[in-house]
């Protein structure tokens, strides 16, 4: 007499694929001999993500009309599917990036434990992606919170997985504590919203607000504010961004690449969904709220990035500023804004991942943190990576080398449609400031005189990247990112169609 709800297994397909792969990878850790473990786990992870992409695409094609499944707790629609495609793609790229240099290897001085936690790393990668895949589809506050914690916890561990390095541990702890605080805020907010409306499902909330005229309800407003704060933390928007540079710098670069792209995608997509479906009647509040947060992010991110020398920090701050740009789209609170955000996310995630991947490559060949100084000459030694990097940073800067250009254009258009010329101006000025450090990276890679190329590493003096290991898979990953970021400039039409139907 217990009516368990019908579970749409296919609707959860991508997630199950990822979870399954995750478990398999975990099994590798114990079953597969150490020699083969890395390859096996990597292969499983790759296949898992591939399967995820495939299923997500199928899902996109199949679910033209969105609906909720499993007792209205999860959305099965193109929106979710699209998000899952992007996330799985990032995961796949991360796998490629990780294979040849898995975080958690510890230092090379101990060859006997070079494969420490290899399988676990891939398991966590898959698991966190699965969590995000859940996150973007969650249909009520509880699932939202749980899936958030799901991928957050996985990320905490991934950040700290290089625990022989103090920086990694520090990053992990900072992320954990700040993140838990943010989660607590979000949770309390959810509780208050629940208290105001008596339900936790997005649709229910909107319905209740409409029904009882709760638009200005104290608890509702309070909860909304706290939820925004919690999400703002995840998308690392100012002033909730402070953890970002430290964690991005401290975490293994592979993980950073994954976080900087995937987390933002998930957080922004979800924020858009929540605001749109659960709080449409309070848009007068959250549009302004997000506009303010966007402005703060643009100002803080760009200004702080100007004075950095560590490339990972620069990129971290730039990701803060880009959170600002995407929040402009979000704050427009219109269909155009949604499309703008959807579109922006594609080239952005590609560029963010790609740029960190390039940094990772440099880091691996030098063995020291990458700074503007020891980036000198990189462009000439590794032409492909160099070109890719300047495509990425110019794309970040909104120069027409990639989708970033059209993305900015879209965002501004959305802002103007919403009647916010001032926000357009802010964005424009922010872009102008950002040029300085983006150009700085290119300058470091190409324009420094040769004698600056000698860098000191703990392994003594090496001429920058004297004979770097050829990391084919890494280059493939970067190439993919490059293809996406450039391709999105030309394929604007189709991508927008995707977004429009989502």
């Amino acid at each position, binding site marked *: 007499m217990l009516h368990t709800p019908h579970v749409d297994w296919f609707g959860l397909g991508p997630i199950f694929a990822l979870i399954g792969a995750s478990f398999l990878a975990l099994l590798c850790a114990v079953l597969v001999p150490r020699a083969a473990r890395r390859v096996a786990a990597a292969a499983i992870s790759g296949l898992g993500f591939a399967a995820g992409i495939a299923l997500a695409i199928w899902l996109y094609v199949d679910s033209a009309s969105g609906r909720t499944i499993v007792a209205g707790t999860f959305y099965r629609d193109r929106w979710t599917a699209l998000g899952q495609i992007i996330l799985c793609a990032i995961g796949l790229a991360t796998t490629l990036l990780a294979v040849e240099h898995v975080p958690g290897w510890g230092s090379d001085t101990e060859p006997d434990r070079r494969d420490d936690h290899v399988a676990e790393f891939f398991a966590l990668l898959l698991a966190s992606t699965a969590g995000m895949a859940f996150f973007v589809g969650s249909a009520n506050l509880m699932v939202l919170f749980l899936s958030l914690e799901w991928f957050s916890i996985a990320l905490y561990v991934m950040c700290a997985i290089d625990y022989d390095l103090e920086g990694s541990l520090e990053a992990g702890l900072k992320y954990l504590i700040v993140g838990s605080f943010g989660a607590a805020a979000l949770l309390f907010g959810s509780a208050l919203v629940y208290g105001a409306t008596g339900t936790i499902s997005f649709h229910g909330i909107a319905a209740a607000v409409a029904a009882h005229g709760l638009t200005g309800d104290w608890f509702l407003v309070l909860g909304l504010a706290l939820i925004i704060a919690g999400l703002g933390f995840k998308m690392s928007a100012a002033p909730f961004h402070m953890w970002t540079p430290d964690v991005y710098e401290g975490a293994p670069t592979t993980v950073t690449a994954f976080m900087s792209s995937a987390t933002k995608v998930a957080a922004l997509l979800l924020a858009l969904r929540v605001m749109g479906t659960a709080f449409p009647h309070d848009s007068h509040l959250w549009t302004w709220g997000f506009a303010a947060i966007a402005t703060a992010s643009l100002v803080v991110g760009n200004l702080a990035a100007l004075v950095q020398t560590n490339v990972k920090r620069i990129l971290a701050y730039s990701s803060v500023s880009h959170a600002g740009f995407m929040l402009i789209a979000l704050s427009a609170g219109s269909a*155009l804004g949604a*499309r703008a955000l959807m579109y922006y996310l594609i080239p952005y995630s590609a560029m963010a991942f790609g740029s960190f991947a390039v940094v990772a490559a440099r880091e691996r060949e030098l063995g020291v943190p990458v700074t503007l100084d020891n980036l000198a000459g990189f462009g*000439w030694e590794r*032409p492909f990576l160099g*070109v890719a990097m*300047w495509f990425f940073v*110019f794309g970040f800067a909104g*120069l*027409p*080398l990639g989708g970033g*250009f*059209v993305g*900015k*254009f*879209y965002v*501004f*258009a959305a802002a*103007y*449609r919403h009647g916010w*010329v001032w926000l*357009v*101006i802010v964005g*424009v*000025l922010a*872009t*102008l400031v950002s*040029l*300085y450090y983006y*150009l700085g990276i*290119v*300058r470091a890679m*190409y*324009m420094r005189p040769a004698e600056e190329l000698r860098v000191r590493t703990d392994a003594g003096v090496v001429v920058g990247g004297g004979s770097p290991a050829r990391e084919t898979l890494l280059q493939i990953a970067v190439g993919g990112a490059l293809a996406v970021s450039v391709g999105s400039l030309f394929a*604007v*039409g189709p991508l*927008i169609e995707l977004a*429009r139907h989502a």
Partner: protein
Amino acid sequence: MNATALTSILIWLPVAGALVIWMLPLSRYATGSLAVLVSLLEVGFWIDQATRFDFSRSGLQLAQQTGWISDLHVSYHVGVYGFSLWLVGLTVVAMAACTGYGFWVGRDRARAYFGLMLLLTGATVGVFEAQDLLLFYAFFEAMLIPLYILIGVWGGPRRLDATIKFVIYTMAGSLLMLAAIVVYGLQVGTFDLVSGPSSPSRWLFLGFMFAFVIKAPLFPFHGWLPDAYRQAPPEVAAVLSGVIAKAGLYGMLRIAIPKFPDPTSFYRTSVLALAAAALVYGSLLAFRSRDFRGVVAYSSLAQSGLIALGLFAGTDLGFNGAVLQMVAHGLVSVSLFLIAGTIERRTTTGEFQLLGGMAKGRPALATLLMTVGIISLAVPGSANFAGEFLILAGVFQRAWWWAAIGAGAIVLAAMYTLRLISAVLHEARGSTVDDAALDLRPGELALVVPLVGLLLALSAWPAGITRHSFPIGKAPTATVKGQFR
């Protein structure tokens, strides 16, 4: 071949060339010759385009349009008008010469270098052919990227500051233009330049003009100019002052003036004042500056001012003169910078104290520099004279004092140009000028002589451009008022 395809080919052929160069591991020599070949092909295609162009018809010609960003009505729309045809011609010719120069001096990191030069060619042609605001903006920005790297990598000792300054300045302008583009496009519902209606908004006009006056540049927005022109490699400086600067002026002619008629007339006096200021100020500073490139740099500031005078005079003579002057001055400054480059290669400097007496025993160098210099000071009968005469005659019809200022500036131009010529060629031999400093080599002649030849041809028949920049038999002002439709 399909005539309209030419328009796109002119843009994308060099880009494709750049990609090929980056993909294939060619030798320096092969790379260079490939690049030169492509740039010559460009010239060929342009000639083909010019022959297919119907100068008597009004409206856009050889146009191509395909959707790009459908929901905001942004499209890939390219085509040419009479005047843009001439500017495209200027671009391909100048780029061919400059690429050739790079080949001749054997720039290191050849693949990167020539790829960027080709990229620059494509982007610049795109600026002059784009008929959609966003596309125009894209190309306008795309020019910056190769320029940034070209100056920053192959430039002079203080190149880093120069590049940052240059890019930030120009981007400051063009980003405001982006804002203006967004607003305009969403207001009128299309980003298409041909079908887009005119707008009365002064703010938008200022937004566009800000980008153009920085690019051109006009006084006092030329803060980036002296460093960039001094630090860039000579051939890039040539492109900068000869072609890129014209993009700003082209923007005024193609967008600012026709799309914003009321603001144009409202701000006419102010813009004319800026232009006149640039003319006089540039000439004065050119007269005092102590090195070859300094003189040319400030003189091109002055020339931009002059052309802007012609454009904003809003008279038929002014428009025709401005177009002619754009082309003529483009050729002149390209030749001058290339000659400056050859001189710097021989003497390692452009400082006037260290130069002098180079005419002795270097007839080719002397003759070419003399010829170009004379043309650039607009001696009556030269193409530049024709241009300046029309411009000033045109602006005279607006108000006599503009023409008076211009006439005064012509005298100043004579002063600084002659100073330049004699500082390099005449009087006692400079300390850096030794017998090792040979006369121009055949390769260099092959680069400069064609340019000078074009200038002389243009001097013999300036009407060739003034008659064919706007539909024959239709007054330019009418054409502009009608937004070139």
